[in-house]
């Protein structure tokens, strides 16, 4: 559910970029001559990457956020028209070759996901993650207690906290959670009977 919006008053750049980005990872690419056209798309939701010239007035980020109220996250890439030495990963120089532009866009689109993956994990303590991983691998509470040298009572209380924090109660549900959080490798699971 990611979208790219290109805002630029030049048709040449708009059309050129839209051709280059036709095989990027975004689900849709929108072209606009001016940021006020965004007002026609207040329903745009999900993850949105906006590409626009650097010279657009300073506080545009706040304005755009106010228009795109349904966006989960918004990121930006700046169009640079003159070659300079300080081109960063958040810039696109219009002289760049198409492949590297697509790569830059895809990297930013992917970072929407990686960010999402990391944050809820922080809610689990280190010990809870240890327990989670063993549950996900199919161990019973008793086995987990032995393995971590803690009492079965402690294991049960960790499991209770894990379920409260994640919203997942069953062992196979926790296995799936661990896979989605990239705590265990999906290939380990696909062939097993854990889920």
């Amino acid at each position: 559910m990611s979208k790219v919006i290109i805002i630029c008053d030049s048709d040449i750049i708009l059309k050129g970029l839209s051709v280059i980005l036709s095989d990027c990872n975004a689900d849709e690419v929108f072209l606009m001559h001016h940021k006020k056209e965004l007002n026609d798309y207040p329903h745009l939701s999900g993850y949105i990457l906006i590409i626009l010239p650097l010279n657009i007035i300073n506080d545009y980020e706040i304005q755009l956020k106010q228009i795109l109220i349904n966006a989960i996250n918004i990121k930006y890439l700046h169009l640079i028209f003159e070659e300079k030495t300080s081109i960063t990963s958040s810039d696109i120089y219009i002289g760049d070759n198409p492949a590297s532009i697509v790569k830059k866009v895809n990297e930013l689109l992917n970072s929407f996901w990686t960010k999402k993956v990391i944050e809820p994990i922080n809610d689990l303590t280190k010990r809870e993650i240890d327990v989670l991983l063993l549950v996900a691998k199919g161990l019973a509470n008793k086995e987990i207690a032995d393995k971590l040298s803690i009492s079965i009572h402690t294991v049960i209380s960790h499991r209770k906290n894990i379920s409260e924090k994640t919203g997942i109660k069953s062992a196979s549900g926790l296995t799936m959670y661990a896979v989605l959080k990239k705590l265990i490798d999906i290939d380990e699971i696909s062939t097993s009977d854990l889920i």
Partner: protein
Amino acid sequence: MELFNENSKLAQVILKDHTLLPVINRLGLKLGFGDSTIQQLCKKEGIDVTFFVEIINVFHNENYFSEKKLLDFSVTTVIDYLLKTHRNYVDYVIPEQERLIDLFLSNCTTGCKENELVRKFNKKFTEEFIKHIQLEEIEIFPYVINLNEVIGNPSKKAAFMDQYKNFTIKGFEKEHNNMDEKMFDLKNIIIKYLQPNYDQNIGNSLLSNLFIFEKDLKNHSRIEDKILVPKVKQLEKIVKKDE
């Protein structure tokens, strides 16, 4: 808390809470009931009206559970309802969920390997669930029906005691697990953790189905644990009192 009674018009009940639709079907009623009250409809179809009212109230109000009242029903009425519910799960709810999951996965664009786990998870749930139902239908319910027959016909007692020498409902009570837990998990996985790279409308249908199924399973277990089991314990006491 709103409670329905035998004088409630069934159409009004459904308009207030449409999630009761499968429940009234299992209890033996079909739509098209005009302005008839529950009392009138049950009489016409030969349905135990008190049982009907109690069951829809149990489903409508999460906190309502009049164990006293429900213990008055015959175990055959309760088991008949439980069996119909099982049939509804096997014939409709589970296949419908599989259909929605297929649809849900067919629109996947990226990260589909992860999304495929939804199918695997559901498949495992279904296998466990079928086993769960089979245990109840092949072992538990026949035991309860036989036990109940002994009450009405003491001459059957010897044969019964012979067949179920060491069997009590306690074993079932201990082992009986909550199948709604997995539906709760799947719901949360989709809402919180899965990448939303699927058609949102299909995702919403699947989620609605999960919400309803989870609630249904929860109430089904409540009826088994809170009505059937205590009821059977009562019967066991009577039959085995002089052993």
